[in-house]
C-alpha cells in the first residue's frame, strides 16, 4: 500500500501521537557524559580551552604551553591548567522526504515516528533542536519540538539526499548531534552526504528505515516494478533466483553505506519500519545508545 501523494500531519497524526506517547520520559543520549548548569553542558574531556576547569600535575607528553608558570613560581610544581571542552547541547533531526520513503504507508509512518521520537527526546534532554525537512531543499520546521505542529511537505521529492549532496546544505548546529532519518536507497556515492552529515557534528547518526517488503520481498510470477523516484519500470518474474539476487545487491548496498559511514564516524543504524508502525518498539534505539 502506498501512502497518499499529499501527505500531511493529519494523515500521520495517529503515528505521531503514538510516537509522542512512546517518547515520554525518554532523553537523547549525548555523545559523552555531560553535566552542566542552567542547560549548559560541559564535557570532562579537556581540550582547547573554552572554560577553566582545574589543575593537574604535568605528565610527560603534555603540551608545555599549558603549564601554568605562575603556579610553578609559587609552588615549584609543574601544573597543567585544564579547561573543560564545551559541548553544544544541540540537535539537528533531518527527515528525508523523498518519494522512496513512502513506498508503503508503514515506511512513511515509521520515518515520521522516528523523527518525532528523536525530537521529543532531544527536547526532553534540554537540547536546542532543529528539524529539517529534506525535500529537494532544506527547510527548517518552525515548531521542531512539537511534532503535532510540524508542517512538512509530502513524500514526493524525486531524489534522495544522497542523489543531490549539494542540496544537503542545512545550517546545522556546530558540534551538535545530527540525526538523519532516511532509507539510503539511492544508487549514488554515499561519501558526500555522509561527509556533509558528519562535518562539524559532535555525533552524526544515519537511521536507515526499510520496509519489511524491502527487506523480504514476496514471490510474484508477474509484477511490474516502478521506481518511486525515477519512475523507471521493470516487468519481472519474481522467482527464487530474482529474490536471491536482490538480497545479494541489498546486502552489498548496505555494506557500502556501512563502510562509508564508519570511515566518517557516522553511526549507521538500520531499522525495520515494522518496529515503528503501527506499534512502536524503540529497543534498537536504546541499544544503539541514542536514547536513554
Amino acid at each position, binding site marked *: 500500500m502506498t501512502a497518499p501523494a499529499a501527505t500531511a500531519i493529519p494523515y500521520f497524526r495517529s503515528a505521531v501521537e503514538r510516537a509522542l506517547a512512546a517518547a515520554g520520559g525518554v532523553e537523547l543520549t549525548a555523545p559523552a557524559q555531560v553535566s552542566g548548569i542552567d542547560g549548559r553542558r560541559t564535557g570532562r574531556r579537556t581540550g582547547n580551552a573554552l572554560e577553566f576547569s582545574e589543575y593537574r600535575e604535568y605528565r610527560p607528553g603534555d603540551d608545555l604551553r599549558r603549564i601554568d608558570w605562575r603556579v610553578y613560581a609559587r609552588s615549584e610544581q609543574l601544573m597543567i591548567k585544564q579547561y573543560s571542552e564545551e559541548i553544544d547541547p544541540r540537535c539537528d533531526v533531518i527527515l528525508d522526504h523523498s518519494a522512496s520513503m513512502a*513506498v508503503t504507508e508503514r515506511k512513511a509512518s515509521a520515518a515520521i515516528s522516528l523523527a518525532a521520537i528523536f525530537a521529543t527526546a532531544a527536547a526532553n534532554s534540554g537540547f536546542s533542536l532543529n528539524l529539517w525537512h529534506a525535500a529537494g531543499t532544506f527547510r527548517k520546521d518552525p515548531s521542531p519540538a512539537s511534532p503535532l505542529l510540524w508542517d512538512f511537505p509530502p513524500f514526493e521529492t524525486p531524489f534522495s539526499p544522497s542523489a543531490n549532496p549539494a542540496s544537503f546544505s542545512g545550517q546545522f548546529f556546530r558540534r551538535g548531534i545530527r540525526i538523519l532519518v532516511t532509507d539510503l*536507497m539511492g544508487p549514488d556515492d554515499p561519501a558526500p552526504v555522509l561527509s556533509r552529515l558528519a562535518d562539524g557534528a559532535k555525533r552524526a547518526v544515519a537511521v536507515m528505515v526499510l520496509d519489511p517488503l*524491502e527487506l523480504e520481498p514476496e514471490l*510474484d510470477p508477474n509484477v511490474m516494478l*516502478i*521506481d*518511486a523516484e525515477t519512475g*523507471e519500470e521493470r516487468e519481472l518474474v519474481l522467482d527464487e533466483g530474482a529474490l536471491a539476487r536482490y538480497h545479494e*545487491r541489498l546486502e552489498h548496498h548496505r555494506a557500502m553505506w556501512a563502510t562509508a559511514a564508519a570511515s566518517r564516524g557516522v553511526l549507521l543504524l538500520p531499522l525495520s519500519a515494522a518496529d515503528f508502525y503501527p506499534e512502536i518498539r524503540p529497543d534498537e534505539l536504546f541499544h544503539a545508545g541514542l536514547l536513554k
Partner: protein
Amino acid sequence: MNDFFFGFEHSLLLWCALPVFLVLLLLYLLHRRSKVRIVSAIFLWDRPQGSPNSGTRIRLRFPPAVFYLELAALLLLTAALAAPFVSTPETFPPLAVILDDSMSMQAKVPGGRSPLESGADFIKRELRALPDRRVLWIVAGETPTLTSDSNARTDFTPFWTGQAASSDLAAAASLARRMARGCHLLIVTDRKPAIELAPDTTCFSAGAPLGNSAIVNARRTSGRILIEAANFSTLPADAALVLEPGSLRTQIRLEPKETRRIVLAVPAAAAREAVTVRLENADASANALLCDDEVVLEAEDDSPVSYRIAGTFHADARSALDRVLNGNPSFRPALTGETPDLDILPAEVESPAPVHLFWLSAPMKKPAANPASNPPQTDQAENSEANPPQSEDPAPSAAGPLSIENASILSRGLPLDSLQWAVSANELPGQTILRSGDVPAISTRQNLNHDREIFLNLDPTRSNITHHPFWPVFFQNLAQTVRTERFGPARANLQSGELLHVRLPRGAQSLTAVRPDGKSMEIQAMRGQTDFRPALHGVWRLESGGGKWSVGVMGLRAEESDLSDAGSFRQDADKLAVMPFWMLRPLAWAFLLLAALLLAAHHVLLAGKGGRQC
C-alpha cells in the same frame, strides 16, 4: 480408420473465439494485468534483457499464467456454444421401434394371438439377433410417446397396452427421426401402414381381417342413451345391448356391415348415476375385439338452473320473465340464502352467481326518493305489484333486421322469423351474438372473475318477443349455457382425445385428474379454468377446490373396430451392411466442465496472489 471423430454442429460459431481472444488481449494490454509494485530502489532488481541504449525497444511481454487460464476458459465456452460432438463408431445405426398402440392391436379370435402379442414376439426375436444395437421405444397412440432414451434397453411391455383409440404412425416416425438421426425404423402394427415406408424401415404386421361387432358411438342425454352399434363382419350378428344398472337387455340383429342407432331409456333410478352399455355378441368368434363392446356414460348435469331476478324490474319485464321461467323444468327459483346459478339484473353489478344476465333495456320501477336507503330488491315476492310501465325511458327504441353474428350455445336454433325486436341505441360490451340492424341485441363476455355475462338489449313493451318462440328457445339455450358455466367439467362424456374444458371453483389453482388406470395427474389452471385432452378411455375422476366430478371418456372409433383392413404385412429394411455408423454424442457438457475447472484454478491462483492490483 480413426476410432473417433470430433466436430462441431455449429462450427461457424467458432469464429466467435477470435473477437474473444482479441478482447481479452486488449484488456491485458490496456490494463497491464501484471501486478504493479512501487519500489524505492529499482537498481537493486534485475534489469530486463535488452539494451537500454538501442533506442525504442519492442519488449516481448509474455502474459501471466492467469491470462492463459482465462483465454482457455473463454475458448472452451465458445467451443461449447458451437455444440461440440464426438462421433463414435457403431456397427449399426440405432433402431427406433414404433409400437402401434391402437385398440385393434388386441383383436384376436378365441385361443388365437393378437397382433400385439405376435408383434412383441417379433421384436424380441429381432433384438436378440442384434444384442448391441441401441433401441428407442416409441408408443404410437393418438400422440406418440418416447419411452426410452436408447442408452439402455428397457422393457417395452408396460407401455404397450393397445388401449389408445387410434394411432398416429406418421407422427411417431417423425419423432423417431428427430430423436435419433440416421436411425432405422421398426413399425409393429396390425395392418399395412397408410404412410409411405422408407427403405430403412422394417414393418411387421400380424393382423387379420376378423369379424367384429362394436359400439362405435354413444351419447347420453336426459333420460336417454343413443347407441350406434355396428357389425363389421361378413355374417349377420345377433347381439344384445345390456344396460347397467338394471341389466336391461335389448336384443338386436345387425346385418353385415350395418351400423344401427338404438335409443335406450335410462332407468329413473340411474338418472344421476353412470350407466354402462355392453354389446354382447352371441357368436364370440365373430367378435374379435372386446374393448369396443362396452361404454360407460356419466350422467350429464341437467339439473334445473337456479335463478334470481332483481326486484327493480318493472312488472312488464317481470311478467315476460315469469312467462318463460315459470313451469320451465330447466329453471327453478333460487332458495333463500342460496347462491343462484343465474342472476338476472338490470345493470352491471357484482354478483356471486357464475352467470349474469343483464337486461339493460328492460322497464324499471320508479327510483326511490332516497336510493341510498333503498337498495335493489332481490326478493321475488316483492315484485308482484303492477306498476305502470316507465314511459320516461330515455333510450329511444329502434328495430332492424335481426341476424346471428357469432354462433354459440346461446344462438343455437333461435327462430328469428316474424320476430319484432325493439332495442335501445346502446352499445353492448363483449362479443355480439345477435344484432338488430346496426345495434347489438345480445352479447356475451367473461368478466375478470371468469363469470359469464350475457347482455340483453330488448324493450319488451315494443316487441312481440314474449309471444314468439324465440323467447323459450333463448332461455333453453341460456340454461344450457349456465350448465356449461357451472364449476366442474363442461361435459360429462367425451371421446378420447377431445378437449375437455374444466372450470374450477373459486380459489382453486389446479385440477387433480385420476385416470381410469388409477394414475393421478396434476393440471395447473389459468384464470380459474383449464383444458386438457383425456386420452385413456374409461371413467376419469376430477377433483379441485373441494369439488368432485366424473367424466366418461369413450375410446370408440369405427375405423379401429373395423378389422376388415387388418392383415399380415412384412417389409424388411435394406440389408444392413456391417459398416461403421458414426453416432454423434454431444460434448458441450465436457467443455463446460473443463471451463469451470479452469476458472476454479484461476480463482485459486488469484487468491494465492492476494488479489490483483491493476
